[in-house]
């Protein structure tokens, strides 16, 4: 097994990490979906959770968001344990799920007001926050548009705006660019990267290598296990590869071969 153990995400710090995943496992009946998964996301950092389909990314997201119970290990958001203090943990979390979850029959604003209410934000403050987040994703002029009339990329941006409405400190995005054209993908990636200036930590799950930036942190997930984690440069160096694409291929292929031989 190739296990890169870069230290970027494991440094001691006085402030809590945006996200700590500590020894997390999950199984569906007899099938193991995640095994001893550990990594951290620092505030104001962009961490890419890189894995093929079926690697366990969505299961991990379901555990972080408490859709599934955490039976093995611990998950902390801004220091709040998701299992013990779900309200405190989830209040710091913004999520964009893989499948779109907007009410298409109502307007952008109405979708956002509903989400604000789900976080206990009253109408007046919600209006201010809606103006703020729509500016962040360049959709101010579509505020009163029915969601049904938006393009796929614009819907994704509305979902990002929705995830930011309650000013979370951690943003999770599960394959947010799936099904979008190149320009929309670049737009969304750009919008999310700009959010780092506000100090938010981002965990971006994808299987698309070209979405990994040079300065990002990477967690390589394969068959439910973390094969490598750390800054892109250190993961590339540990895998003895010329770039992150090759490193990912080498790591996952070696793991698959090792698994077949076991």
């Amino acid at each position, binding site marked *: 097994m190739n296990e890169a153990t870069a230290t970027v995400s494991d*440094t001691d710090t006085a402030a809590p990490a945006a996200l700590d995943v500590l020894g997390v496992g999950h199984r569906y009946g007899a099938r193991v979906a995640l095994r001893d998964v550990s990594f951290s996301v620092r505030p104001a950092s962009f961490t890419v959770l890189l894995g093929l*389909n079926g690697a366990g990314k969505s299961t991990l997201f379901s555990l972080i968001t408490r859709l599934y119970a955490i039976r093995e290990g611990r998950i902390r958001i801004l220091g709040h344990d998701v299992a013990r203090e779900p309200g405190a943990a989830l209040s710091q979390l913004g999520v964009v799920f893989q499948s779109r979850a907007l009410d298409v029959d109502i307007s952008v604003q*109405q979708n956002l007001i509903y*989400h604000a209410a789900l976080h206990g934000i009253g109408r007046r403050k919600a209006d201010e926050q809606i103006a703020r987040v729509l500016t962040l994703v360049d959709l101010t002029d579509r505020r009163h548009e029915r969601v049904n009339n938006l393009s796929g990329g614009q819907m994704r941006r509305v979902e990002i705006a929705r995830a930011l409405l309650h000013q979370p400190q951690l943003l999770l995005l599960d394959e947010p660019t799936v099904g979008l054209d190149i320009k929309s993908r670049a737009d969304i990636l750009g919008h999310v990267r700009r959010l780092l200036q506000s100090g938010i930590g981002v965990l971006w799950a994808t299987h698309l290598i070209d979405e990994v930036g040079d300065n990002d942190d990477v967690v390589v997930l394969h068959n439910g296990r973390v094969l490598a984690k750390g800054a892109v440069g250190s993961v590339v160096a540990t895998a003895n590869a010329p770039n992150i694409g090759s490193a990912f291929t080498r790591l996952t292929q070696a793991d698959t071969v090792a698994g077949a031989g076991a």
Partner: protein
Amino acid sequence: MTTTATPAPHRLTPTQYWICLCGIVWREALRFIHQRERFISALVRPLVWLFIFAAGFRQVLGVSIIPPYDTYVLYEVYIAPGLIAMIQLFNGMQSSLTMVYDRETGGMRTLLVSPFPRWWLLTSKLLAGTMVSILQVYAFLLIAWFWDVEVPPVGYVLVIPALLLSGFMLGALGMLISSLIKQLENFAGVMNFVIFPMFFASSALYPLWRVKESSPFLYYVCEANPFTHVTELIRFALYGKVEWVSLAVVAGCAVVFLCGAIIAYDPSRGFLARRGGPGG
């Protein structure tokens, strides 16, 4: 890794709970307004029973003087409470269908990742569905009034608590069922195995003494059916009276179904996490 800073405590205020409830009710109302066909079909169903079935069976199914009625009543008047309960039953199942749909499309996740406790989110959703069902009931009562189906004027107000409780109970049943259904396609089974048996094996269409005359076994089945008690609770409330046994049964069932739904949607105990991964 070590983290030494203590996170700030987090406490949601009663005002925030209220905002959350209002938001969920508002969203359900918006959805209802945008789905006109849902409103029309919810009204057409009981009206067909009232205009066609009741008119046709008026002469066949005579009704003797039984509480809460003080005199002989038309068959249309007798079945009106059952049809009101039917509206709420279908609305509860419709809400459950919506929850399965929301789960498939991801809308349910948006609700469940809210920082509010899950029991509050589910209770708010139930209340929202109940409000919508009460709007449907009053639209039905208005049309039925033109069809000479009248109750004492005060009954139109006194029935509200009964409608709240019965709508809540039937919604909780729907929510519990929705947790057991994995895919939208399986929902047709609910029609066959829940809605129809509940409706027909009840006092909605015929008084139980008539059922007892023809089949004592069916009579006990009807007596054990919570929908019978929903119907009787509404029937008595429309005449300003309380059917205490029905009230107890409906309230008890509401608590049991709600607890079941909360457990089913609880990530540590529910069924959702055991059913295979989301993929990816």
